[in-house]
């Protein structure tokens, strides 16, 4: 019984894992793009800050050569400073004594296409038009070279260009120091920064992707690093997929084990309950048989006494009535147990005879008179089954007495009981209504199960066998009928209404 849901669960689990893997593949790519986006933004910010820094340096630098040279010696990002006006370079200019660095700068820029005519500093597409500052980059030797320039008014030379050639290694080092190192935050992926010739400048992440693998994600950087790009590689085993499916498998396994353990427990529990119940029934069955004979004797002699004391001592008569009514009740109880036990063993037998149902009902109700009076329960009778029909009087009696007993036990506070009978289309219908606390909706079906008792305050103080309604239903079904709890009661009414339908062909037919 437990195998099928478990199998289903296993299948669903694997289907889920497969779906999860697809989902995760997409998620990984998304995550990769997010990570690269973050890195790119970070570098863009580094360059923004750098530009501010260089702007400030150029602002305060002035045009005095000694100051400029001092700056050149001390600023860790500067390789060479230059100043140009509309006629070309003012500094460094071969007209004055130059250091070897300055001379090598002049040699270096000869190889580039940069012209120091400020009106037409050639540059990449990003900077077309008239700008007051910007980058000029060129590729030479083993990498990218950077110049940052600004245009400004000078008192002596009119409009001039001031620029800085950056120390490429210092710049790259600055970039690297703004990127993460390998640590536990990036154990399952690798991000590499490539230059224009596809050479790795820097990389981080513990995972080492195999050669010739294509990146899971790739992204180029913002200007002026647009010729560089980032690549993202994920370890297909470690990052989430592998780890996750392993986790999922383990989780699923745990769930399976729990379910199996639970079903074994429940199975044992329920068989034990059944075993207990049948033991209980068979014990009570045996005891009941033993009880029946003395009970009959008690009742017989009590009735004899009642006849003798008729009309004499009221008090004695009252006590006798109690004995008779209580022995009657005990008798019904014993009958219930015996019928239930019989039903459990080999099915109840059913012996219909021609009777008038209302007569049986009335007789039975009479026997409850004393009990109703002492509990102040008012009885309303709506008896409309006065035709002779084929019915098993024992079954009818037992059903009705059980229903009334229940009202006595559980709904006495309503102080009201209504018994209605009718015969419609060969169906005998018996309805017993009370105004007690009623039955909660969710328990409507359970109350017909054997040994079930509505566990609430009300029943806590009342003893019962828990077989009453189960017996009612069994007996009704034996009679080709049904026993139900009606839910059509008016909102104002509390209480429960039980309806029994029995198949009762008319005598003649």
């Amino acid at each position: 019984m437990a195998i099928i849901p478990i199998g289903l669960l296993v299948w669903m689990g694997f289907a889920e894992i497969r779906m999860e893997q697809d989902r995760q593949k997409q998620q990984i790519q998304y995550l990769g793009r997010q990570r690269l986006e973050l890195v790119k933004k970070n570098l863009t910010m580094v360059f923004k800050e750098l530009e501010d820094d260089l702007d400030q340096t150029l602002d305060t630098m002035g045009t005095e050569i000694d100051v400029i040279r001092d700056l050149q010696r001390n600023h860790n990002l500067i390789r060479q400073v230059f100043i140009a006006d509309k006629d070309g370079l003012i500094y460094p200019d071969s007209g004055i004594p130059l250091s070897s660095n300055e001379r090598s700068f002049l040699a270096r820029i000869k190889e580039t296409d940069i012209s120091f005519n400020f009106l037409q500093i050639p540059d990449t597409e990003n900077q077309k038009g008239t700008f007051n500052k910007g980058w000029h980059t060129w590729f030479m030797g083993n990498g990218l070279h950077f110049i940052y320039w600004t245009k400004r008014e000078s008192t002596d030379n009119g409009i001039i260009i001031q620029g800085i050639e950056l120390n490429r290694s210092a710049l790259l080092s600055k970039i690297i120091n703004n990127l993460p190192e390998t640590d536990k935050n990036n154990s399952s992926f690798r991000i590499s920064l490539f230059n224009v010739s596809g050479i790795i400048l820097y990389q981080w992440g513990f995972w080492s992707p195999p050669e010739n693998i294509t990146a899971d994600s790739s992204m180029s950087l913002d200007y002026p690093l647009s010729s560089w790009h980032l690549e993202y590689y994920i370890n297909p085993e470690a990052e989430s997929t592998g780890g996750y499916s392993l986790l999922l498998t383990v989780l699923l396994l745990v769930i399976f084990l729990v379910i199996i353990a639970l079903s074994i427990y429940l199975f044992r529990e329920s068989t034990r309950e059944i075993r207990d119940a049948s033991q209980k029934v068979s014990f009570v069955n045996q005891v009941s048989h033993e009880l029946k004979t003395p009970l009959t004797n008690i009742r017989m002699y009590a009735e004899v006494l009642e006849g003798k004391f008729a009309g004499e001592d009221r008090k004695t008569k009252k006590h006798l009535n109690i004995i008779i009514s209580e022995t009657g009740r005990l008798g019904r109880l014993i009958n219930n147990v015996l019928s239930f036990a019989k039903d459990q063993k080999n099915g109840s037998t059913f012996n219909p005879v021609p009777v008038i149902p209302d007569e049986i009902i009335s007789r039975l109700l009479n026997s409850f008179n004393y009990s109703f009076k002492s509990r102040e329960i008012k009885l309303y009778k709506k008896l409309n089954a006065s035709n002779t029909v084929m019915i098993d009087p024992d079954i009818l009696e037992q059903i009705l007495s059980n229903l009334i007993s229940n009202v006595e036990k559980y709904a006495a506070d309503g102080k009201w009981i209504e018994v209605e009978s009718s015969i419609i289309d060969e169906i005998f219908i018996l309805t017993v209504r009370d105004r007690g606390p009623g039955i909660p909706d969710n328990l409507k079906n359970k109350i017909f199960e054997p040994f079930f008792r509505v566990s609430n305050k009300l029943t806590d103080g009342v003893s019962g066998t828990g077989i009453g309604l189960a017996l009612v239903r069994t007996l009704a079904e034996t009679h080709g009928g049904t026993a139900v709890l009606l839910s059509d009661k008016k909102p104002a009414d509390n209480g429960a209404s039980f309806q029994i339908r029995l198949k009762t062909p008319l005598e003649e037919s």
Partner: protein
Amino acid sequence: MKATAISSVSALIFLSIFASPLSAATIDLNVSVSNPFLLADQEQSIFLKVGLTGGDLGNERRTPANVSIVLDRSGSMDGEKMARAKEAASIAISMLDDRDIVSIVTYSDTVSVLVPATRVSDRQYIQRRIETVFADGNTALFAGVSKGANEVSKFLEQNSVNRVILLSDGLANVGPDSPGELGSLGESLKRSGVSVTTIGLGLGYNEDLMVQLARRSDGNHAFVENYNDLTRIFRYEFQDILSVVAQDVYIEINCPEGVVPLRILGRDAEIIGNKVYTTINQLYSNQEKYLLVELSISPNQVGSRMNVADVAIKYADMKTKRSDQLFGNSEVEFTKSIETVERSVDKETVIDAVKQISAEVSEEAVLLRDEGRVEEAQALLEKNTEYLFGAASALESEELLNLGDVNAMDAEAIEDDSSWNESRKRMKADSYEIQSQQSYGD
């Protein structure tokens, strides 16, 4: 300073010797020329030496260190090398205390900051972290140095010795890999006040790159052929670091008309017209660092005296934790007597000049050998040996004699292909040791 009024450097030294020990100078400036007397009426060239010697550290509080140890953990380091490297780093840590700041950075394919810059209060923790390092992968040297310098820069202070110590046994193969690029990085770090000491282990590293990085950042360099020597080198390096007395030394030399600085020997310096600029990152207790400049002196009359250089030094005094200055100059006198010229030669200065020239020649020989011109290289070294032996006897210098011996051996070794890799590394390291006046070698 009073001493500057008396425009003689020897007087300055005299004063500092007899000054009360309480006000002992942190550094001594010694400006001298190879030839105090020159022949009149002809153009001549001489050597100017600007020497700076760190004072006694005594029992005074030493300068705190801010060091990043950058360890190559590429695959080639596996085994005994890695074990010795870890041991060396651990011993270095044990030489520091809670005045100092240390960080440990490792690199292979990528860089990891094993111990972020931290005060050395729990040595055992740092040493335990070092123990976890294992070898594997490639050599991202540039990034490793960058991250190490980044850790140092977190606590960058003028009053502490800021240094990256790089240990590598292999060729940089992730990121920039040329000596020029690493040199530029060193240059940038030097300007931030950080030196990089490069320790090359075994025969697999690129000595040009490692020397450039050290030279441009004014750090030390060592060639450690046998990993068993690592602990010794680390010990030297840390002793060096812990004996710093002055930092950020800025030297400016101004030559009057008639004197032209021609070239610098050894160190990197900048000549602009009649001015020379350079910086030295650190001065150590009882060690001399110097700058040698070849000057061209225009003809002068007999009997005239001439100031050939005004020297200004700015530095951060680690004892007083203040910025300080020193001034000095040097004069020459013109004579007709060759004998006077020869007799007055400043032997110390000339010896230093000979060493620098010899180191230059050695580098030239390496370049020739690289081009496959083995015989020319050998001939050059042989000539250099003769030069050194000649100078040694003329100047009565044992140091030059030893250097001559080394040169003679190099001349022999240079033609042996099988040992060239090793010889080259040793020659480069030896030259750099002379050029940077490094206090320790292999």
